[in-house]
């Protein structure tokens, strides 16, 4: 192996992964470390603030996100296992911090913020992470990552190199699963209708594993699959790439 320049990246696992899915955080850390990246998890890092921003409570979002900006100051590359939280930093912070004392720092942070698959493929140039999964995989494109970070290609490149896996096209893979944060609770009937369409497409495509890059969409899809007693499972991209899902 050729000597690579030393790379260091902050892993911002996001609040949902931190509190509910620590395994996804370790999977992401492992993927980065295997590429020789020194993974740093700054103390006290919690949340990007998207939940309050989307709910219209901008003062609360500002307090949380402003603190996050401070913690991430001068920390180099920031990698998130989430296109949605990544898009919050890259797209929504602009509006949240416009005309405030954090404006310049928010802009600077946006330029060194990456989603995990983007970082692996576009920054590190990785295509094969040496994973194995014996089964049939379908990819659900999480909306914010796809539309506001240009994601989709990277996850497919990485998955195509997973030994033993067959990738099938998910009909309507670019259609929203219906999560949408508090939308899933406040407008739960609409959210459920959208989820039902997603579940129908999943059943049609013949996969046994649905892979997505956002733990939030994964929670929605997995919640529907488990309630409907489906044999299909949902997981985060990092988990299958780090060999944490058995085929």
């Amino acid at each position: 192996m050729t000597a690579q320049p030393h790379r260091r990246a902050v892993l911002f696992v996001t609040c949902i992964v931190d509190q509910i899915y620590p395994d996804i955080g370790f999977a992401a850390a492992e993927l980065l470390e295997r590429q020789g990246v020194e993974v740093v998890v700054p103390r006290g890092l919690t949340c990007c603030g998207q939940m309050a921003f989307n709910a219209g409570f901008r003062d609360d979002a500002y307090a949380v996100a402003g603190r996050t900006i401070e913690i991430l100051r001068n920390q180099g590359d920031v990698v998130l296992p989430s296109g949605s939280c990544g898009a919050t930093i890259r797209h929504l912070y602009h509006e949240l911090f416009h005309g405030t004392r954090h404006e310049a720092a928010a802009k600077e942070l946006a330029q060194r913020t990456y989603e995990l698959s983007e970082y692996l493929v576009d920054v590190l140039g990785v295509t094969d992470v040496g994973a194995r999964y014996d089964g049939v995989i379908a990819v659900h494109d999480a909306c914010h990552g796809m539309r506001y970070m240009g994601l989709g290609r990277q996850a497919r490149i990485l998955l195509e190199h997973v030994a033993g896996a067959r990738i099938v096209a998910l009909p309507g893979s670019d259609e929203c699963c219906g999560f949408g944060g508090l939308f899933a609770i406040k407008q739960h009937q609409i959210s459920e209708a959208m989820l039902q369409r997603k579940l129908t497409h999943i059943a049609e495509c013949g996969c046994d594993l649905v892979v997505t890059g956002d733990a939030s969409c994964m929670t929605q899809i997995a919640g529907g699959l488990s309630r409907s007693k489906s044999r299909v499972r949902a997981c985060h991209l990092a988990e299958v790439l780090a060999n944490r899902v058995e085929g």
Partner: protein
Amino acid sequence: MAAQTVAFVERVDEALHDSMLQTALERATTRFLGNRAKAVADVDNFEALRNQARAIRAGALAHLDELLARLADNVERHGGHVCWAEDGAAARQYILDLAQQRGVRTIVKSKSMASEEIHLNEALEHAGLDVIETDLGEYIIQLAGETPSHIIAPAIHKTREQVRDLFVRHLGMEPTDDIPTMTRTARTVLRQRFLQADMGISGVNFGVANEGAIVVVENEGNARLTTTAPRIHVAIMGIERICESLDDLGVLLQVLARSATGQRLSVYTSIISGPRRPHEPDGPEEFHLVLLDNRRSEIIGGKYVEALMCIRCGACLNACPVYQSIGGHAYGGVYSGPIGAILTPLLQPDLPDAHKLPHASSLCGACEWACPVKIAIPDLLLRLRADAVKNGKYEVYEPPAMFGWRQAMTNPALYRLGGKMASFGTHLLARNGRVGWLPPPLDGWTKQRDFPPFAPKTFTELWEERKKQG
């Protein structure tokens, strides 16, 4: 139509359980999306065309006063009349007075969302005038006593079978599901009406300032008849629907037809500049242009100005998974779908539940990507949500929840404590590793979905432990 009196959540519920509506929406939006995709692929660089169209719309809004004045001057120079209507009441009064002064009895109308916005039909009918919608979709919903549920396909919520029943009941048609037969039936009735009518009322897709002209696009020929057969033509135009030149119009028409119906160009494009001239054999004797403000000028120069770029193609409705699920009527306003969730709170702020519409979105962004002028719809929805909160419009549990969330997310000790409590609580509720019931207001989640229990130890804790172990 109960949309005004029933709460938003109930309208949603009704829509989701209306199997006819679900069938109609599925058929129609799928067809629209497929046609649009083909029409877009047909252009070398649709993205460049979108950027051009956006720049044209932004430019027109930046010079709105000047362009409107130029349009009005040119219309008057051609012998037309211009009414500057500050609101719906002013527009209705102008048209009503005109109809009464000219002894009008029968009015034919071609599609106009602006006329829906000011509830024109009700006012005219109340004054004893006979008003007939001539767009087939509009005619269908007029027979059904309903309002449009889509910007360009007003009867999108009706199945073919429902239309058959309406025509049998109202037009005495022999029962048949054959669409050409149904269309012919409506055509026969409407032809008579065109010949009878004293006044034709149309909408306006674009006003062209330099030409003093209005442009109406359509596929049925009914708008051309509406604007030429009766002796008086009244066109109603939202003041923002303007462009400067025919060159600008060319770009806008290209993105409009492709985005709306998946056509390269609509079947009929009428460019109308004033009434019949002395040397012309036909056309109306009088032409009146009603320029409708109705709160639009309040939006100009503010943070929602992008919403006025809308060219009413309906592409965001078709692309929206929420619209696909609930249709247009559930929104309760004149404009539905993603753009309606923005326009309704701005143009009809007094409508109950208007402030809830911006929440009827998962913020997936499909609308913004479908929009031919790239309106950042999710960003505008988020601004409306923030404004609603500032005005005290939120669920009762939200402020305390946000306060608690903010404390937890900015204080590591509280964050840890909150996580432990959530983990304890969710593990108590979990069966086989899945939580099937959560207390209100979180029970919205668990009605049709399971939830995972919170982890006993957070990633951060486990990471610290790993570091200590070396």
